[in-house]
């Protein structure tokens, strides 16, 4: 039995530092304010600063103290078996598949309102420049052009709107709305702009060097926060001092973009002072909130909805400039197509002290994340690296310092959410796994063995709580067995032959934190008079079969056939805000909301007195009112 008392004591050695925004723009300020109202970020910040422990963890700690900690379950934690239910656990054809293979599925760019205008944007060809003159008279006079706006007309507060000081090649300077896409494109070419080119910086490391060109005038530094976000645990210096040797790695990733098959787009339709925005997105309520703030309109008059969505990968979570641009013409509907994507550059360095006996007791890691540093969110669900649970564990005096995530601005596209390959996690894996291999090589140890000696399988080192199950040791052993590691591993720097193509073997773990269960998890389940079910949620279906999964959850809970459940989603006015579909939270978070709402509706139905003969007489059900239930379960964030 693990010594669970240390789970409480270890918390004292943990420290978070979370920096303040440098030179926050109007939009960052608005976003932080919104986040505070909406998600209680202030509490999260206090938690990150170590001034407060999260409520659920505090409750769990109290329960642990009072009742003694539960015995951690041993055994293969990765073998999860679910007994098939009424609907869940059976192969099910995606409910959207038929519409998608016939071309009937409507994506937001497939919406063509009558008299719709087309917008096109003039983009800077230079990574950093100042517009010295701009002449739109020829564009305005071009037949079929409805309006031309430049950075001089755009609201200054606008995060991604037009600018007179473009900070990446592609930064929008002016925009045209015209009768057709072709005319708009021609008009854009008729705008005459003179630029003064300015020095630029493209890599995050260069951007932090003294004297580096600033991303835009008026900045003091290219760093986005001061201090950067830092997480420390234990005494790193001591860990490094005691070690026999230290290994180091540093990596840089190439430029990453989301590249959803469906390009960004928005179609704005005005009905007097009521705006409907069709846009391919992952979070209708979030975009509605941001657009309503930008346009100073009540949320009741901004409706955001998406049709089927052609992928998102994080990039379609927030509000972009084209949302405002499309909404710019109040008397006509307008489309913005193939609008701006975002991109990321990441890199970092890490150090690991190692002992001759194959132990590693500390790690220091620095990561940077570069792009144009408009912060989409302050910290969000930022969590210390998962790898802490894997390296340097197994020792009560474990020391796990790290420095994580410098956010840096350079002359690249805007940086938003990125889901690709585990987001930040991919960089952590790259650093940590390289470190582990180098350390193993330095002490001449089998890399599998090195990990088995250093993994933590009993205690979650982030929350200092014992695992109910972990399975990490079993996973590594099982993987090694499948790979025939024992026979294929020949030792470090051993090659069987120098002839022909070279083939090596290597070891790496990848840990994926999939499915964050985080509030708000809301849904409205309405049992209709004929026993069919309508579910309302504001959550999006970005193409991962979300509506099918949710339908299965509701059908299973209520005991109705799958085809009698209809999910009305992706509409900020039709359903409650269930937060965006990002972080792989669709099934776990939104699905949990639906599960609870369905259970609630079921309970209400059973408590009520159904009319006699309900099961046999279909006509009598019409007398029944529809039951509505909504639930926002505040379950703990689970990992």
């Amino acid at each position, binding site marked *: 039995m693990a010594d669970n008392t240390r789970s409480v004591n270890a918390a004292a050695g943990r420290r978070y530092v979370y920096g303040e925004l440098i030179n926050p723009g109007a939009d960052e300020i608005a976003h932080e304010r919104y986040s505070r109202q909406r998600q209680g970020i202030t509490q999260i910040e206090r938690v990150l600063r170590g001034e407060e422990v999260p409520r659920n963890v505090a409750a769990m700690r109290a329960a642990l103290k009072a009742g003694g900690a539960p015995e951690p379950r041993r055994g293969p934690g990765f073998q999860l078996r679910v007994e098939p239910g009424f609907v869940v656990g059976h192969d099910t054809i995606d409910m959207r598949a038929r519409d998608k293979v016939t071309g009937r599925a409507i994506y937001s760019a497939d919406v*063509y309102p009558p008299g719709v205008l087309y917008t096109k944007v003039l983009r800077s060809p230079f990574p950093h420049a100042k517009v010295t003159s701009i002449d739109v008279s020829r564009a305005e006079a071009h037949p079929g052009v409805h309006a031309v706006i430049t950075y001089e007309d755009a609201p200054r507060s606008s995060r991604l709107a037009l600018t007179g000081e473009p900070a990446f090649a592609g930064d929008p300077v002016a925009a045209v709305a015209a009768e057709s896409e072709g005319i708009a494109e021609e008009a854009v070419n008729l705008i005459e702009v003179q630029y003064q080119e300015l020095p630029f910086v493209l890599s995050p490391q260069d951007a932090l060097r003294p004297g580096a060109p600033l991303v835009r005038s008026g900045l003091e530094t290219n760093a986005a926060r001061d201090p950067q976000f830092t997480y420390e645990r234990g005494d790193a210096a001591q860990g490094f001092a005691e070690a026999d040797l230290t290994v180091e790695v540093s990596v840089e990733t190439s430029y990453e973009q989301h590249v959803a098959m469906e390009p960004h787009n928005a179609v704005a339709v005005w009905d007097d002072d009521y705006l409907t925005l069709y846009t391919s997105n992952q979070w209708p309520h979030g975009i509605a909130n941001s657009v309503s703030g930008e346009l100073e309109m009540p949320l009741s008059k901004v409706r955001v909805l998406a049709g089927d969505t052609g992928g998102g990968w994080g990039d379609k979570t927030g509000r972009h400039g084209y949302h405002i641009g499309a909404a710019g013409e109040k008397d006509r509907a307008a489309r913005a197509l193939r609008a701006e994507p975002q991109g990321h550059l990441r890199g970092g360095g890490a150090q690991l002290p190692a002992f001759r006996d194959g132990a590693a007791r500390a790690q220091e890691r620095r990561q940077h994340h570069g792009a144009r540093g408009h912060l989409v969110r302050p910290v969000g669900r930022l969590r210390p690296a998962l790898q802490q649970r894997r390296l340097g564990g197994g020792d009560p005096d474990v020391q796990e310092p790290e420095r994580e995530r410098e956010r840096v601005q350079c002359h690249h596209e805007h940086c938003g959410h990125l889901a690709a390959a585990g987001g930040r996690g991919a960089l952590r894996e790259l650093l940590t796994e390289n470190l582990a291999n180098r350390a193993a090589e330095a002490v001449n140890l089998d890399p599998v063995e090195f990990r088995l000696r250093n993994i933590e399988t009993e205690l979650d080192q982030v929350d200092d709580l014992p695992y109910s199950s972990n399975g990490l040791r079993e996973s590594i052993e099982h993987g090694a067995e499948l790979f025939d590691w024992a026979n294929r591993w020949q030792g470090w720097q051993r090659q069987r032959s120098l002839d022909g193509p070279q083939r090596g073997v290597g070891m790496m773990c990848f840990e994926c934190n999939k499915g964050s269960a985080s509030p708000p998890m809301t849904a409205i389940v309405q049992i209709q008079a004929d026993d069919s079910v309508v579910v309302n949620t504001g959550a999006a279906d970005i193409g991962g079969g979300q509506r099918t999964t949710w339908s299965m959850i509701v059908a299973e809970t209520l005991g109705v056939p799958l085809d009698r459940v209809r999910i009305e989603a992706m509409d900020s006015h039709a359903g409650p805000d269930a937060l965006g579909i990002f972080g792989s939270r669709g099934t776990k978070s939104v699905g949990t909301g639906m599960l609870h709402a369905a259970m609630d509706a079921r309970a209400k139905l059973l408590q009520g007195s159904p009319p006699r003969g309900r099961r046999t007489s279909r006509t009598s059900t019409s007398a029944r009112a529809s039951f509505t239930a909504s639930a926002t379960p505040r379950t703990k964030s689970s990992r």
Partner: protein
Amino acid sequence: MAPSSASRAGSASPLLDDDDGAATVVTTDGSDTPVGEGDAVTGVIGVPDNVPLPEAVVTLNVNGRDYRVNVTANMSLLEALRQRLGLTGSKLGCDRSECSACTVIVDGVAMNSCSLLAIREQGKQIVTIEGLERDGVLSPVQEGFVQHMGLQCGFCTPGQIMQATALLQQNPAPDEAQVRRAMSGNLCKCSAYPNILSAIRYASEHWNA
């Protein structure tokens, strides 16, 4: 083995060929200009200088029906299908023959409709994703994509299905290498590729059924 549609569509001249100039060009100010040796139209495509964009009424045969369509000289076949005929099943992805989400079948050959000029497609048989279903029955390729989940977000799916349909029309029993080769120009960010292969295998097995 058919060459990739991307290379064929990409090689098409952006300028009009005069042998297609059967249509009358109608300028937006109402005056009619006959299409001459191509210069009357091509002249305004390059650098527009306050010259109204010429429009032409062309006849497009789509999914077995003739449509008279008013198109501008620089309008792609994809734009004509989506904006003029309301056939929004064909998708605009990259707009430059890289992703093939816009694939349609023109005279039996899979082509990227984003890179074809609508005005040049007169007299050809164009089949889009909307033209595959018959009396509510999915085509074998469509059925394969449903049964084998050859899609997630579905945005590339119409293009994938049209490419696969063109392949099977030419070769109803391709081996896997032929399928991979034929489908190599159709990108899927959701990476449904293994399922797409299964779907096409299913379609091949059910091709004559």
